[in-house]
């Protein structure tokens, strides 16, 4: 129960700060939030949009979380999402004559593998050269985004070539809509399955146990005879694959074709989702739905209350800052209450994330 206190108070404070900003702008916060809520939850379509927007966040949240649990910092979900979208849609467009039951899974698999390989590059650079995955994943984001731009302006451009976009994906590779009259597609179900996979992997498999041990204490992992190289590579592949699925599901389920800058930062918002959800399976789903709701409700808020949709990002940012502060606060408290006051750990209060994971 106690675990929910911080996320919930973080959200409340985020909303309060958002209200303050709206008020300062001379608009009515109550009206704004009423329309936000109505937009996000007030109708079948609104609800569906909330889920549609939450779906890629679940994938990218898992992408960050699975790496984080293994002591790796994957800031590259955005790039993995682009590459996964690219490979997924390529299979969806160019592999013809297959039934849906074969084609769609193949396209999703391609998205997973594409993103996975993109993550694996960062893993390999770390293992081979000791390059920090924080840096390499960020860099690879740019490579991926420009790679997609290159593909849709050249090799994959839709004939006759008037717009920088790919041809539409074949019907046999589209994620079917599950609630008619909305855009809610099967990708959400895939995302939930991946959450289950995430849970089973980390807490019920030996490989997941190895990943968690490596994440918490790499030296203990070495002592126990675990293979750090294999773990790093595998986890980065898995994290990349989750990111890749975000792209594939977004393109195969909503956009149906590849174009430039198709992600509004889902990869980075995934970090926020994982942080707010404490890397827990349920937490990631709830945080994704929250952020998805803010997104889908934000449009309604803009239309009816005249409040710019950017307020949503203000709220989101405050929530994350608060959650991050809590982490520091808890560290401080722990040191204060523990039998030994250890000033050194406070002075070097780097977030646990920065801990070196594998040598």
């Amino acid at each position, binding site marked *: 129960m106690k675990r929910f206190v911080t996320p919930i108070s973080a959200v409340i404070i985020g909303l309060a700060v958002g209200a303050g900003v709206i008020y300062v702008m001379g608009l009515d916060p109550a009206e704004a939030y009423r329309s936000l809520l109505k937009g996000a939850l007030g109708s079948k379509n609104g609800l569906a949009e909330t889920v549609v927007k939450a779906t890629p966040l679940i994938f990218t949240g898992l992408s960050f979380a699975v790496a984080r649990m293994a002591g790796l910092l994957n800031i590259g979900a955005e790039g993995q999402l682009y590459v996964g979208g690219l490979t997924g849609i390529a299979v969806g467009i160019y592999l013809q004559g297959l039934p849906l039951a074969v084609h769609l899974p193949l396209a999703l698999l391609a998205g997973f593998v594409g993103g996975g390989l993109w993550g694996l590059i960062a893993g390999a650079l770390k293992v081979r050269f000791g390059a920090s995955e924080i840096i390499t994943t960020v860099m690879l984001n740019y490579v991926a985004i420009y790679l997609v731009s290159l593909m849709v302006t050249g090799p994959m451009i839709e004939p006759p070539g008037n717009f920088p976009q790919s041809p539409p994906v074949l019907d046999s590779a589209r994620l079917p809509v599950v609630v008619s009259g909305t855009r809610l597609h099967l990708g959400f179900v895939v995302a939930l399955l991946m959450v289950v996979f995430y849970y089973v992997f980390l807490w019920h498999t030996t490989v997941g146990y190895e990943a968690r041990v490596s994440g918490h204490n790499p030296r203990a992992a070495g002592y126990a005879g675990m293979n750090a190289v294999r773990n790093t590579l595998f986890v980065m592949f898995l994290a990349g694959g989750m990111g890749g699925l975000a792209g594939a599901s977004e393109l195969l389920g909503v956009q149906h074709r590849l174009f430039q800058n198709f992600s509004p930062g889902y990869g980075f918002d995934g970090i926020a989702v994982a942080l707010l959800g404490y890397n827990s399976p349920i937490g990631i789903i709830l945080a994704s739905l929250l952020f998805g709701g803010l997104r889908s409700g934000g449009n309604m808020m803009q239309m009816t209350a005249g409040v710019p949709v950017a307020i949503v990002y203000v709220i989101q940012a405050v929530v994350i800052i608060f959650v991050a502060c809590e982490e520091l606060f808890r560290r401080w408290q722990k040191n204060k209450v523990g039998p030994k006051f250890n000033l*050194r750990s406070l002075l070097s209060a780097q977030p646990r994330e920065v801990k070196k994971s594998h040598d």
Partner: protein
Amino acid sequence: MAYLLEMQDIVKDFGTLRANDHINLKVEEGEIHALLGENGAGKSTLMNILYGLYHPTSGTILFRGKPVRLNSPHDAINLGIGMVHQHFMLVPALTVVENIILGMPRRWGLVDLKTAAQEIREVARSYGYDIDPFAKVWQLSVGEQQRVEIIKALYRGARLLILDEPTAVLTPQEVRELFRVIRRLAEEKYTVIFISHKLNEVMELCTRVTVLRGGKLVGTVNTCDTTKEELARMMVGREVFFQLDKEPPSLGDVVLEMDKVEALNEKGLKALKGVSLEVRAGEILGIAGVDGNGQSELAQVITGMRKLSAGRIRIKGRDVTGTGARYIYEQRVAHIPEDRQAEGLVMDMSIKENLILRQYYRPPFAKGLFLKWPAIKENAVQLMKEYDIRAPHEEFLAKTLSGGNQQKVVLAREVSTQPDLIVAMHPTRGLDVGATEYVHRRLLAERDRGAAVLLISTELDEILNLSDRIAVIYEGEIMGVVPRDRADREELGLMMAGSKRLKAS
């Protein structure tokens, strides 16, 4: 009689836990006062209150007869109270002088390093310390870092010095040196509160002892009126036997054979230079030596955590040179690592998860790729009972356990599989009397069962108490191996210092 410091009826609650329960402590000026108690007895809490880090829930502190209120270490420092923590509060990347003046008030916000360095050198020299104020702290040995901490406190005008388990990290020589300085301080009317759970040191150094147990005051006695045995009884609450009953060893086959083993350390220097050793089933071979003479590397090459640069290692006749930690573990080799928190345990994981750290991948704890939680839990429940691991249940995180219970988790995990060889490094470092006794008994029981035990320790008493044969390591070389009954403390000391070498026997 006026006391320098009186702590009266100090109570400190952490939530529902009462860490200090109506404790009284009176310290005279110029005395060396020991604060004795097992881990968790409330010593550190009491001293943190005195240093302004905690607020007492109730109680008063009189300093020089006047009641004082300490809101922060600043207040304590202003009163002339200095504290040297067990874990040093130094910034490794900064120099000695920068560390010492860190946080001190300065004129116009400017730092005059040269003057400060000169002053520091003088303070240091007056206590017989030779210290380079411009050396970076990370380059200093642990003993030197501690000196920096002491000088820091003195330089800031401390008249009452609190030393929190200062000998836990020191070699015997450094301990002797530290004691010399403490006595010197006392001669000059400085007052020292010496926190410890090592009885020999307390008896040797201190004039009076205050004993705490379970957060309560047991009493204050003069060291001249008491004995080690009585102090131990006050501290633990029951009789403690310092002598272990030891059967003569019944030797079996050679289990571990090292043949001219060499290995490099992190800096690429030779840490082991042609080490040849044999350990037989049913005996304990003790490796004595001053810290940092290749002991860590020795344990690591045997357990497969470090590569050899030359030589061979055989376990039960099988050549294991160049294999890895897991392969060697599977040859029934247990390893109690030198640092349980950094290496032997995953502090943020539960007891039951820590207990399968070595065997998580094989039955009964795993079937294929999947973990078998019921078996893991059952294993934990059973081992916690068998090894007396005190925790409410097996889901508790390792970091919530006391040092002794943490070591019992490691011990249970490593020893319960009935290994043929046990490599134990500093198995009792930082443990209290009760836990130390427990670990020693367990190791002896393993030897009597027929395991070969390689005990690496810097505590000569521990080596002498447990070993059947003793080898001395100095700068990566074995200076000689002597049977326990022919071992002589003085001779071992000379070998540890590298000034004597026995002919290979």
